[in-house]
């Protein structure tokens, strides 16, 4: 008698030529063989259902996946989808590689559930994944075990900071899947977890579907993300520049739905950083989300939803600010471009920004169209003191911007035109604290633009730069990162961008709350310069000198090569935010070791922004 019935959703279409398909009823397990190179798709049919996997190689199945080796070689508590998401055997041989993952929340590679777990809770004899594995592996001569080390997909358990293992309802939705690629001929066993006595399977074991695809299938690596509760699943994408980037590095990571380079082969974080500060670098920032806001009420919508005074923007101007919620929290930060009296463009970080703007527009009955255009505009940033020099010979502005040239395009202004005869929108903005430009281009022209810039910049030492060096540069420049310096519980006054709130506007979302918060924000963002070379970590606590109690936390930290100092961004109580105040950053547990730090400007490097304005 099951009183909560989940209806199976429509299963996702096969990803390639299916060579075998296995249905695993809830609470059971199966064993099956795959050949090296074949893909194994583990589908959660109804959602919220864990599936454990064990795999064996060798003629006698003597070699099996090993959690300790896997964790150690990956440097992660569990493998992730991407270039390093592999499971290894005790002999350190790769067994399975993660190719796609649409759930992103799995177990920490512990044990499959065991009879002992159920016995301890008063269910002697309850089926367990380990016992189910014993049954299906017995015909292959594999000796039974009371508990199998297994890959626990969709199993929502985690090891907390204290070492405690916590669990909860699985996050997988109907049709979510993990796609693995066999690195060797394998015997696999998969379960549909039998646990119905706690929330991990939603109290109700449901089926798991296994699809095996032929080795010749060409399935890209990807992670599935959902921008909001109702948004469709979106798999990681390459940008228009990824083919060129992949010729220079294979250190790509998933970032906000795109594959982006962490660093480049034979260069690395230091080299790329100094190229930015001394010459010029090229960055792929296509993961930014772009939305065209058009119509009679386009201005009214942005004036209501965006923190800056949009009425001050003329065509060709842009402004950095944030979208706010009614309690003054930052929904997202971004830049509004004024493309025309009835045409604006918002460039931010989240697909859900469009959903938010649409909701505001609907509530206000605005006549406005919000059109995502991220798929039509990928963007490169060319940043560094020589960026203008590189662009100079390549750039031609359209007639309406012709009075301007690349040499006198002001900060936070943009123009349309061509670079190396490729149509682009050129914006004098960036995220590095250096003079620089962002180039928005149709993806069809992405490769040509990359090649043209790299060729033109080669004589002066232009290099590509990855995300690791970018993070260091933006911390030096005191620039915010979503999830670090702000979220939707953080006001602009706490995040350090109170200057980006136009309180003189008649009204905007969050104004009433911000009027109160502005008087005394619970914390304010400051820059810290630490004594010594040790780099702080996000989340470490900040204390007054000699005191145990806290006045704030570190949000981001890095070693600044150009300052030769350890620096950090921190959010601290206003009483301790005065420049020159000496505080202490707590290392280890906050008590064992304290490092003195002095409150300074938010941007430790070039606080007057003289370089970006040059």
């Amino acid at each position: 008698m099951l009183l909560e019935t989940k209806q199976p959703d429509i299963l996702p279409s096969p990803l390639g030529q299916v060579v075998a398909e296995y249905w695993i009823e809830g609470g059971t397990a199966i064993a099956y063989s795959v050949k090296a190179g074949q893909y194994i798709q583990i589908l959660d049919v109804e959602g919220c259902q864990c599936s454990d996997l064990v795999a064996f190689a060798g003629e006698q199945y003597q070699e099996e996946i090993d959690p300790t080796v896997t964790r150690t070689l990956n440097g992660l508590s569990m493998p992730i989808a991407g270039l390093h998401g592999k499971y290894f055997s005790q002999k350190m041989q790769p067994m399975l590689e993660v190719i796609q993952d649409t759930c992103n929340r799995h177990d920490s590679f512990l044990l499959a559930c065991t009879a002992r777990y159920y016995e301890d809770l008063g269910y002697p004899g309850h089926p367990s994944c380990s016992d189910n594995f014993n049954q299906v592996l017995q015909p292959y001569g594999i000796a039974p075990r009371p508990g199998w080390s297994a890959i626990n997909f969709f199993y929502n358990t985690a090891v907390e900071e204290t070492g405690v293992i916590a669990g909860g309802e699985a996050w997988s939705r109907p049709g979510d899947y993990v796609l693995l690629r066999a690195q060797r001929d394998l015997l696999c066993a998969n379960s549909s977890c039998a646990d119905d006595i706690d929330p991990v399977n939603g109290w109700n074991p449901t089926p798991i579907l296994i699809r095996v695809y032929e080795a010749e299938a060409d399935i890209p690596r990807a992670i599935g993300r959902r921008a909001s509760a109702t948004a469709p699943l979106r798999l990681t994408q390459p940008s228009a520049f990824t083919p060129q980037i992949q010729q220079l590095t294979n250190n790509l990571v998933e970032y906000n739905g795109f594959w982006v380079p962490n660093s480049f082969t034979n260069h690395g974080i230091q080299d790329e950083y100094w190229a930015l500060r001394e010459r010029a670098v090229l960055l792929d920032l296509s993961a930014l989300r772009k939305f065209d806001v058009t119509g009679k009420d386009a201005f009214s919508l942005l004036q209501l939803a965006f923190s800056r005074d949009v009425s001050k923007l003329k065509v060709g101007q842009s402004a950095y600010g944030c979208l706010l919620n009614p309690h003054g929290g930052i929904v997202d930060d971004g830049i509004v471009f004024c493309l025309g009296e009835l045409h604006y463009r918002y460039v931010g970080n989240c697909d859900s920004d469009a959903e938010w703007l649409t909701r505001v527009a609907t509530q206000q009955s605005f006549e406005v169209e919000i059109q995502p255009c991220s798929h039509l505009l990928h963007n490169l940033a060319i940043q560094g003191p020589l960026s203008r020099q590189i662009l100079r010979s390549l750039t031609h502005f359209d007639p309406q911007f012709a009075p301007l040239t690349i040499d006198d395009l002001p900060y936070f202004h943009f123009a349309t035109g061509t670079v190396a005869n490729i149509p682009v929108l050129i914006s004098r903005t960036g995220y590095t604290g250096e003079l620089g430009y962002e180039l928005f281009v149709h993806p069809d022209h992405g490769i040509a633009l990359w090649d043209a810039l790299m060729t033109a910049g080669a004589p002066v030492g232009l290099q590509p730069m990855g995300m690791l060096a970018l993070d260091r540069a933006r911390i030096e420049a005191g620039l915010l990162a979503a999830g670090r310096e702000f979220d939707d519980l953080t006001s602009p006054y706490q995040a350090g961008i109170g200057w980006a709130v136009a309180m003189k506007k008649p009204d905007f979302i969050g104004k009433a709350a911000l009027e109160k918060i502005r008087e005394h924000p619970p914390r304010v963002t400051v820059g810290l310069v630490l004594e010594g070379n040790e780099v702080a970590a996000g989340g470490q606590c900040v204390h007054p000198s000699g005191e145990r109690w806290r006045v704030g936390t570190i949000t981001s930290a890095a070693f600044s090569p150009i300052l030769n100092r350890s620096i950090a961004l921190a959010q601290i109580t206003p009483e301790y935010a005065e420049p020159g105040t000496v505080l202490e950053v707590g290392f280890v547990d906050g008590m064992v070791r304290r490092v003195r730090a002095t409150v300074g400007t938010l941007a430790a490097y070039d606080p007057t922004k003289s370089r970006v304005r040059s």
Partner: protein
Amino acid sequence: MSNPSVHTNLLWDIAGIDGLQVMKTLFGDGCDRIAPFQSFETELDHTPCSILRLCESNFRIRWLGEPNDLESMLHSVTKDQRVWVKQFPWLVSVQLPHDLDIVQLSQIAIAKPPFSLPSLASNCAAPARIETLSVLVWRHTLQTSETLELHTAKHSLETLEQSLSMQRSSLLEAIAL
């Protein structure tokens, strides 16, 4: 000494997010007063039953009436509730003879710490092992009579009965001496 009686259809398990609320509706606030591995005796529709709590929201009902009666009553209160109600086909209840007390049982059964069988109070349960077999030992009152009950997997039953038989033989020898 009489033989243990084995029952395969007297136990009903109920679990889920709304498990406690359903139990309170059926059996009263007493369900909320007991901790996991504690139990109490009550009546439902004038039929005696015992309620054992296993987790925050998981309960086991020992029902002495017609199974169909309980099933229909459970149906009536679990509608629209996020719970399941099952009779596990692999789980059996073994009611030990009255002349085998908890002290004697503790000579062959080892409770999992922090539980202790010799000190197991009435209306309490404890997970334990008899040799390699896993059992749940439940000491409770059933129709005013003190009962010692074991829950175990059906496939363990034969071995369990052998172990209990050996215990009984030892006991008889001890009495004869």
